[in-house]
């Protein structure tokens, strides 16, 4: 080993050491957080890592930036193989991959060149896109471009220096086994006539520049959003956003735990380590914010900001909590004690994420539609942050929009979010000959399914028509079913989404007790919120039932030919179906409603709005927002109604009573009289009487 190798080895070890120190430091920050068991289902998690991270499934949803980034990432993976060879070779000159079978080595050589060029091209486009095209989602939330430009510049620099090293190397040794590199070879040809001394010198300069740039870049990661190249793979692995298990299941809160003083999160140490890892992993790409219905209608909520604020606060608080006051001292040293920009350690500790970084207003604007999570390419789960902070607001501080108070009180007193008489719950069924579970049990019978009606279907005039339509379909198909009638109470979804876990668990336990008492196995409901709640979240409290949404159930009935239809083909309609968030993004039910509509109306023309399926835009009612005032920006339901009307459809179809209300209101507000129908109403209208 020569001196320069020894020096390089030293540099390499120092760089690696400093990097490890930072990684360890950042990992230690996670220790201030709450636990969260994400160890289950390793194979599913691994599959997610492969599809989301390595195959760039989410990234590729953007038709422009997608391929651009995928190229850079795959290029990075391929080139890293080369980088390792280079770094090892720098310390141990005998080392190279040449021991590999020659065809493999040739392939490897070529790949370095090819990907180097591709990456450089992609980087050039990235610069152009960021600086000239100015995509909207790369702006906002107080972000600056300096970090991104530095990263792009560094990568560009790495590519250029790599080609330079290769070119000068091949100019010196045209017969090197690396001559398989086509581009480097081409670049080296004009250099051959330069003096050997110059070539050697240039080669060394570029080699060292390249190597040092690699090591510098590596150590820049912990201070940059580029940290995502380290943290995104664990973040995607541990993320539950693509499963395992049902999506969108809120973390259970054990309200009976002894000695628990804090429910929900007001600050980073009250969140889980996964929430904090989300903070490390955010690349500030803005895909989440660009699809957020609140953001799109001019509200302050930006999902990206929530995550970035989490990271900023973590960086501020964690060191202090772990006894490291160096940052504060440094800041005071640089800016002077008592300077406006500097804050004492006490002040920092007295601050918190809630209120000082993330405002109440932002938190309440969320409709929990999951569009943000759906788009995020690195497995960030924004809703965990938002709901945890809502939990703190409601459970610890009783802070929530004043109009929500009657909703909570109604749920407590009447078992529904509105001030309606509980004994009116089954009135919609008067005269329809629908038995209750109580009646059937008394007769010693039990139904094939329980039709869970829900509060909208029981009390809202428009939704009652959906209840009737669905009941008629079941009766026409000869399905023995029953309802709970007055024994049904609100499933608790609005309370849970708004953070009132206590009220939610009270209601859920009541329902589980009733359902268990009647030994219910299969439940069908037309409300996606009831569907999600009872099917996916009740198991946390011991309620395990098979829950089917009516779109799926009706589709099954239609497929089995159990629904007698009129023989004529039905009206010629152009119909647009609006995807419900809790049916679609939460539960991946996109086809059943469409299939149901097509089977019911064989000559219907289905048109899709621009934002559809897992890109669909929320109607605005989720996350308890149905019960809150919308005080900022444009009304979400009007925005969505506009999108649906723009399809030119003469009829709109929905599969959720909340969507029904919001879209109908939106359509009316636009002065249009395009009818909005639930899919069961469409099917019922075709029943052979």
């Amino acid at each position, binding site marked *: 080993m020569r001196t320069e190798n020894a020096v390089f080895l030293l540099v390499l070890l120092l760089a690696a050491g400093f990097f490890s120190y930072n990684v360890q430091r950042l990992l230690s920050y996670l220790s201030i957080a709450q636990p969260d068991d994400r160890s289950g289902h390793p194979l599913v998690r691994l599959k997610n890592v492969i599809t989301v991270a390595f195959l760039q499934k989410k990234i590729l949803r953007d038709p422009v930036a997608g391929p651009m980034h995928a190229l850079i990432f795959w290029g990075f993976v391929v080139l890293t193989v080369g980088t390792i060879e280079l770094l090892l070779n720098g310390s141990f000159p005998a080392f190279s991959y040449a021991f590999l079978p020659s065809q493999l080595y040739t392939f490897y050589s070529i790949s370095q060149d090819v990907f180097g060029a591709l990456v450089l091209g992609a980087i050039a486009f990235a610069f152009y896109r960021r600086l000239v095209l100015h995509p909207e989602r790369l702006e906002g939330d107080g972000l600056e471009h300096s970090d991104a430009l530095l990263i792009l510049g560094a990568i560009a620099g790495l590519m250029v220096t790599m080609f330079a090293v290769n070119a000068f190397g091949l100019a010196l040794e045209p017969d090197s086994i690396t001559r398989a590199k086509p581009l480097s070879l081409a670049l080296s040809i004009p250099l051959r006539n330069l003096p050997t001394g110059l070539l050697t010198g240039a080669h060394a300069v570029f080699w060292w520049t390249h190597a040092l740039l690699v090591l510098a870049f590596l150590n820049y990661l912990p201070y940059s959003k580029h940290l995502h190249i380290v943290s995104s793979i664990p973040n995607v692995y541990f993320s539950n956003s693509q499963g395992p298990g049902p999506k969108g299941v809120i973390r259970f809160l054990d309200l009976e735990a002894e000695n628990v003083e804090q429910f929900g999160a007001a600050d980073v140490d009250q969140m889980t380590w996964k929430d904090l890892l989300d903070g490390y992993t955010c690349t500030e790409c803005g895909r989440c914010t660009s699809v957020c219905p609140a953001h799109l209608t001019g509200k302050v909520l930006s999902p990206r900001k929530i995550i970035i604020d989490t990271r900023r606060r973590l960086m501020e608080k964690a060191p202090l909590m772990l006894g490291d006051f160096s940052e504060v001292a440094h800041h005071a040293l640089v800016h002077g004690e008592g300077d406006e920009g500097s804050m004492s350690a006490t002040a920092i500790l007295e601050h918190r994420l809630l209120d000082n970084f993330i405002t109440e207003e932002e938190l309440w604007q969320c409709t929990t539609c999951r569009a943000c999570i759906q788009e995020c390419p690195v497995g960030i789960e924004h809703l965990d942050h938002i709901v945890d902070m809502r939990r703190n607001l409601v459970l610890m501080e*009783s802070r929530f929009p004043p109009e929500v108070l009657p909703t909570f009180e109604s749920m407590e007193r009447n078992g529904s979010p509105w001030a309606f008489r509980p004994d009116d719950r089954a009135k919609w069924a008067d005269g329809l000959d629908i038995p209750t579970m109580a009646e059937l049990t008394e007769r010693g019978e039990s139904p094939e399914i329980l039709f869970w009606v829900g509060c909208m279907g029981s009390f809202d005039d428009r939704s009652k028509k959906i209840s009737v339509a669905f009941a008629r379909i079941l009766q026409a198909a000869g399905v023995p079913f029953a309802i709970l009638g007055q024994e049904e109470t609100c499933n608790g979804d609005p309370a849970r989404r708004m953070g009132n876990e206590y009220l939610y668990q009270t209601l859920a336990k009541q329902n589980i007790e009733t359902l268990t008492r009647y030994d219910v196995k299969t439940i069908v409901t037309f409300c996606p919120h009831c569907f999600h709640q009872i099917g996916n979240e009740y198991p946390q409290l011991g309620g395990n039932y098979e829950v089917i949404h009516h779109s799926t159930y009706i589709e099954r009935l239609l497929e089995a030919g159990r629904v007698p239809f009129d023989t004529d083909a039905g009206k010629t309609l152009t119909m647009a179906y609006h995807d419900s968030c809790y049916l679609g993004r939460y539960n991946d039910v996109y086809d059943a409603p469409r299939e149901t509509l097509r089977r019911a109306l064989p000559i219907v023309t289905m048109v899709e709005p621009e934002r559809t399926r897992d890109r669909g835009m929320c109607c605005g009612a989720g996350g308890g927002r149905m019960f809150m005032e919308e005080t900022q920006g444009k009304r979400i339901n009007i925005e969505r109604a506009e999108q649906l009307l723009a399809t030119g459809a003469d009829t709109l179809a929905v599969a959720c009573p909340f969507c029904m209300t919001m879209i109908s209101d939106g359509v009316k507000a636009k002065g249009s009289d395009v009818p909005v129908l639930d899919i069961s109403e469409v099917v019922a209208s075709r029943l052979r009487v």
Partner: protein
Amino acid sequence: METRFKIAASGTAVDEAGLKYDMSDFDGYAVETALQLNEKQGPGETVVISLGPDVVQEQLRKALSMGADRAVQLKAERVPTDGLVIARALAAELKGGAYDLIFFGRQAVDSANATVGPMVAELLGLPCATAVSTLDIANGRGTARRDLEGAAEIVEFALPAVVTIDEGMPRARYPSLKGIMAAKKKPLEVKPAQLGEERLTLEKMELPPERAAGRIVGEGPGAVAELVRLLHTEAKVL
């Protein structure tokens, strides 16, 4: 009060099947007013008292979870119909308490008499401001607004005093989970209520005459005359 009531078989009470008791809105404002006063001008103790069967303990616990310090149940098999009997029992309990302020809701939402508050004040010899919609306490004196029909009075009084609370006062806070858990450990004392003989007794409860089904009176401006006629003769609201 959204419930549709049925009369129990006895004919002297409403059928309580499926009904839940809750703190009345007025009592909620009263508890909230007391809590806010102690928070702003504390330290002080907020004590909540109720008279009735054990079911009132739920409401006492609710007040404790809002932040009250302790609770007292004057136990009685049923809440007396006669307000003076209730007032005497409460006065006996309140006398020794050395309270600066005694708050009542303006009236009970079910019996709707609004008599107990001022009666207690008389029995204790304390000044009393009823149905206040604003209240300021400073330097041992109180100032309050009382809404009359189409007018209002601003009244002043010295502490100790009795105040009954009306709309316009702050709404009851929603108990936090912390509050609910802390309430379980706060003292709730149960004592027998000292009840005298009732001179006002309940003979019967009945539902008011059924509301006739609504109907469309007509179409367009031409139907106005008929509507006004009906409002005058039938509904008697005009």
